[in-house]
Structure formats: C-alpha cells, structure tokens
C-alpha cells in the first residue's frame, strides 16, 4: 500500500532494524532489512496524521460490537 512519507529527516539505520528483528526472532536478510527499514520509517510517521485531532481522552476499543446502536 502506498505510504509515501517520513515524519522527519532522522534516518533509521538498516543495521539497527536488522538487529532488532533478529532479536525478536524474525528471519531477515540484510537486503530485507533495507526494505523493512524504508517501510518502517514511513509507518512510524503514520500517527502524525492523527495529531490533527484530539485523541487523548478517547478510550480505544480494539474489539468492538455494534449491537444495534444505530446512532452511537
């Protein structure tokens, strides 16, 4: 999917991502680490778009039910 931005000029080193992934038991090659790092840079910026709204007092409900509340 077409994420297309990073939130800052900070560079995430592929070596760090590789080490973290390996520590977590994920099997990735140095080449995969380059791709994963680029994707992660963009993904970490995703929450920036939320800052346009005040979410602080919203309690998230990871599994929710609609249960007929037509107007909730």
């Amino acid at each position: 999917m077409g994420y297309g931005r990073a939130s800052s000029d900070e560079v995430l080193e592929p070596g760090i991502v590789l080490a973290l992934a390996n520590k977590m038991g994920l099997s990735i090659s140095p080449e995969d680490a380059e791709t994963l790092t680029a994707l992660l840079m963009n993904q970490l910026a995703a929450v920036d778009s939320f800052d346009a709204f005040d979410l602080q007092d919203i309690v998230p409900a990871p599994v929710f039910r609609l249960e007929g509340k037509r107007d909730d």
Partner: protein
Amino acid sequence: MTELTDLSLSEASDMIGAGEVSSLELVEANLRAVDKTEPIVQAYANILADEARAAAKRADAEIAAGDRRGPLHGLPIGIKDNIYTKGIVTESGSEVMAGFLPDHDATCVSNLKRAGAVIIGKLRCHEFALGSNEPPTRSPWNLDCYPGGSSIGSGAAVTSRSSFGALGTDTGGSIRVPSSINNLVGMKASFGRVSIYGVVPVAWTLDHVGPMTRKVQDNALLLAGMAGHDPKDPTSAKQPVPDFCGELEAGVAGLRIGVERDYFFYDGLQDEIRASVEAVITEYQQHGAEIIEISLPELEITQDALFTIVLAECSTYHRKLIRQHSEKYDPASRVMLQLGELIPATHYLAAQQARSLYRAAINRAFSEQRLDAMLWPTMPIATAPLDQLYDFRADGYPESPVSSMCHHTFNANLAGLPALSVPCGITGEGLPFGFQLTGRAFDEATVYRIAYAYEREHDWHLRKAGLIEDV
C-alpha cells in the same frame, strides 16, 4: 456459453422454485463455463466438480420431494479460499497452508449449506488476503489489468459466469474493490452481521465476510443465507436477520442520502467516474431522495488508522507461523508481517483511538443529518495495469494505483458500517466501475433498497466482459 449461466442467482432460484431448471443443470452449466474460462481467468484454487454434482443431486431430490429449504437451495456458490470448508483443502493462497484440511466449516459456509447452497469450488485469493501478491487470476474485462483483490477469484468467477455468486472477505475493501472492477455488486455488511468464525484472520477488528453477485437482489439473498448470530465468534452481533429483500421495490422517495466531497471527490478521482457518480446522485434526487452535503474531516486519518491496525493485528496472528515457515511466505507478505511486529503498541492503540474518533464522527453525521445512507465512488480509478500498481498513476496524479484503490473503502471497515458497491459505468477503455453506498449499522436493507432503485433503471449489471462473450 450456455444461457443458464447468464441467469442471475435470483432468477435461477425462481426457476428452481418453478421446476424449470434443476440444481444439477445449473452446476453443469457452471462447470462448462469453468472449462471455457479457467484456462485464461484462473479464478479457482480448487474446483469441486464431483462434490458439487453430488450436492446438486441431493438438492434436486429434496426439492422434488417438496422440501425446498429456501431461495438458495440448489444454487452453486464459490467460496474464497481463506474460508474454512470441512474436508476440503483450504490454503488461503499461501504455501504456508498447503494441503490444510479443516475439520469444520466456517459458520458462514455451514449457514449456506443449511440453506441448501451447493459449493462449486474454492476461489483464489491473495496470500492470506493481505493483497500483497498477485496470483495468476485475471479479470475477463482486461487481462492486463489488476482484477481486484484480495477476493480476486471471487470477482473473476462471478463475472466469468462460472459461479452464480461468491463469498469474499473484506478487511479494507477486498469485496468492494474486486466487485467494482468486475462489474459486480459486493456487500461488506455491518461488523458482526456475518460470523467470521472459521475465516483465516487478517485483522480481527476489521474482518468481514460478504457476498459478491451480479445483481442487488442476488446479493441480498446470499447475505441472508450467511448472516446471523454465532456464539463461536466473539465479534458476532446478536441481531435478527431481516428480510433484506423486503423493501427492495420501495424506491428512494423521501430518503436522505449524504454526500461528502472533500475526501471522496478529491483531485485523484478520475473524470469519467466523477461524472458517472454525479449522475447517480442527480438521478436519486430526481427520484425523490434528498441529497445532503456533509463534512467529515476525520476521513483524512482513515488510511493511516486502518493500515496501522491491519499490520499490527495480522502480524500478531502470524507471529508463530512466520517464525516456523518464513521461507514459505511470499516475500511481499513476509516483509509486511515483519513490519507489523515493529509497530509500537502506542501506535496501534493510537490508531484504535483514531478509529473510534472516525466511527463517532460518521455515526454523528448519520444521526444529526437523519441520513439513510451515504454515497460516493467505490474507487477513484477503475483499475490499473498489473505492472504499474506501485508506481505513480499513469494519469499523473501523485498516488499509486494500489493506494487509490483503497482510498474510498478503508473507512467503512473502521466504522463497521455496511457498504455496498454497485455497478454504474464502464470507462472508454472498457473497464467497469461502481459507486458505494454506506448505511447505518445493521440497516443493510435500506442500502439494498437504494441500490436496487438505481439498478432497475440501468443495465450495467447485464454487461458482459468481451472475453466471456467470445468463449
């Protein structure tokens, strides 16, 4: 191509009821279509010819004995291959699940079997419905263009006339996108309306199962056969299943339809689609609906919110599998699942907060404006060449086709509201597209009513891909 396959699901149902055609004849007609189209289209992961014939004979015997179970009895239906079918290989498009034989049916499948439907085959999907790889399935509308995913085989089979209807799954648009691309009607019903027990998860809080058909009435019949509370699914809603066809003929006079333009009619919306959907809106107005312009600035966060949730949840499901079978995953799927593990928990929960914010906003719009539905294009583009999916769009708009295709669909998964794609045009290049109706929670009946009011005035649903005309 035999004329039987040109029947819609509801027309075939009526003929079975009248004794004018048998279930076995319908199955054989579908299997002949399979023989003709599958070498090119490749919609099926597994064609269940013998099983379907046997089930059809049983259905015919029951119907002949006066024991017709309902409108789906004897009708051949295809099932997306990420949905469990007891004793039938279910691989979810992945080598990781190669040869997997479920010991039970998904609840949606057992409901359909109880209604008498005949399972004609398992339909290809993107690996684990992640939409990150490309099985060889092709849309008969254009073999060089993306046929829509992740319910890729479901769309191709129904438009190829090798199935009267199909089940798809939709976590971010995977029913509505292939429906729009293949000139079909596709419903992502309310979250909890159809059990997701026995469906290989993508993201538990966003996953839906739903019907893909050629006509609105077909879709309503198929949804009724699948829906209902399921105690085995913790997300299943305790809602009665209404007669979704009960108000189909009621028209739209007096209904209030919301239209949001800043997000859905943005600069990335292709001109032909914009003009056609504007014409749909005008037509509803002429038939007595009130069009209400609405504002939903929260739509801007829906892409980031959904994608973050999907990555985190699907990576959680695959956490053990990817460590055991890393090499069996398609590289594109694997990297997305690895990415999901690296998302901070705070980001996942922030995305769920954003989802709650959006959900409250759209429900508030429904309530304050007393809306019966909202309307916008299903996708801002019709589709794109297979080799250009991840580049910037050929029309110069700075967005990849893949991003464009889900731009208009993610929001309904976040809100959990019913969303239906309805055919409304074909581009100058011969590519179909649709418009999308979003309804109030558990009010699929009104969505179908509004859709049918348009469908009965047009013949888009009767148009056939050139490839199907030729075989």
